[in-house]
């Protein structure tokens, strides 16, 4: 990091989740140590992975401005992450057995669409505050309801093919 005449960083490296690696502090910096500790605590509170954070540049004495800008950017990232986390709550997997049952019973061309729709309903119910147990029960119900009509439609189709095959066999013999 180069510093301008006002002791402000020039071409400050962009900090991103992928760029952040580790804090390297040039010794000896007792004052900085305290600040770093504080930042690390904030990192943990902000749910950033402490083992894979923070910077890959060296903080040296006299780079006060650099450090504060770094800290501000770090807080910005933490805030952004907190907003993202709030906006996209952690997803829970639907019942595996029901999912497998639907996968096995449905034709490939419809499988992903229906499983995706069932999953969407399941996640929306959880997001609306429904308990996991109830959401799982409803998923089972929806899964079984989804298989029935499609299997019936398939059986009808196969039945028609069977009748046609029988007619063709009689016609040929």
């Amino acid at each position, binding site marked *: 990091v180069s510093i301008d005449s006002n002791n402000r960083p020039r071409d400050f490296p962009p900090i991103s989740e992928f760029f952040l690696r580790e804090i390297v502090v040039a010794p000896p910096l007792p004052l900085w140590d305290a600040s770093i500790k504080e930042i690390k605590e904030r990192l943990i509170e902000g749910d950033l992975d402490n083992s894979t954070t923070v910077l890959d540049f060296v903080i040296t004495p006299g780079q006060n401005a650099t450090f504060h800008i770094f800290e501000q950017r770090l807080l910005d990232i933490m805030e952004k992450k907190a907003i993202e986390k709030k906006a*996209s709550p952690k*997803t829970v*997997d*639907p019942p595996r057995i029901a999912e497998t049952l639907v996968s096995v019973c449905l034709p490939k061309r*419809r499988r*992903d*669409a*229906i*499983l*995706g*729709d*069932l*999953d*969407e*309903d399941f*996640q*929306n119910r959880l997001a609306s505050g429904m308990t996991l147990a109830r959401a799982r029960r409803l998923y089972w119900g*929806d899964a079984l*309801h*989804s*298989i*029935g*009509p*499609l299997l*019936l*439609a398939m059986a009808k189709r196969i039945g028609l093919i069977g009748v046609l095959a029988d007619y063709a066999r009689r016609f040929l013999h």
Partner: protein
Amino acid sequence: VAKSDELTLIEQQMLLAIIRQHPIAYGVSIRDEIKARTGKEYPLGSIYAVLERLENYGMVVSREGEATAVRGGRKKLHFTITGAGRKALEASLATMDAMRKGLKLKGAFA
């Protein structure tokens, strides 16, 4: 292929829901649209069985959409109505309108 005036009620409802949500209609949104307007909730299996039938008739076409995390990374299947589908729907609704024309249902069965 079904005749244009042989659309069932659910087929009419589905085609109308697809038109209303053009061009992003998919299983869940079609079901929700019908539920919001008629109060009737069809299971997704019924929705897809009818969609498959309509697709076989050439009345709707499907295309893969985007995958989202809330869908477990699975893609949506978007449906749009074809010219044949629109024609069949108009004919079917016209038949119903013709039957209803001039008829006063209110108090007819009292």
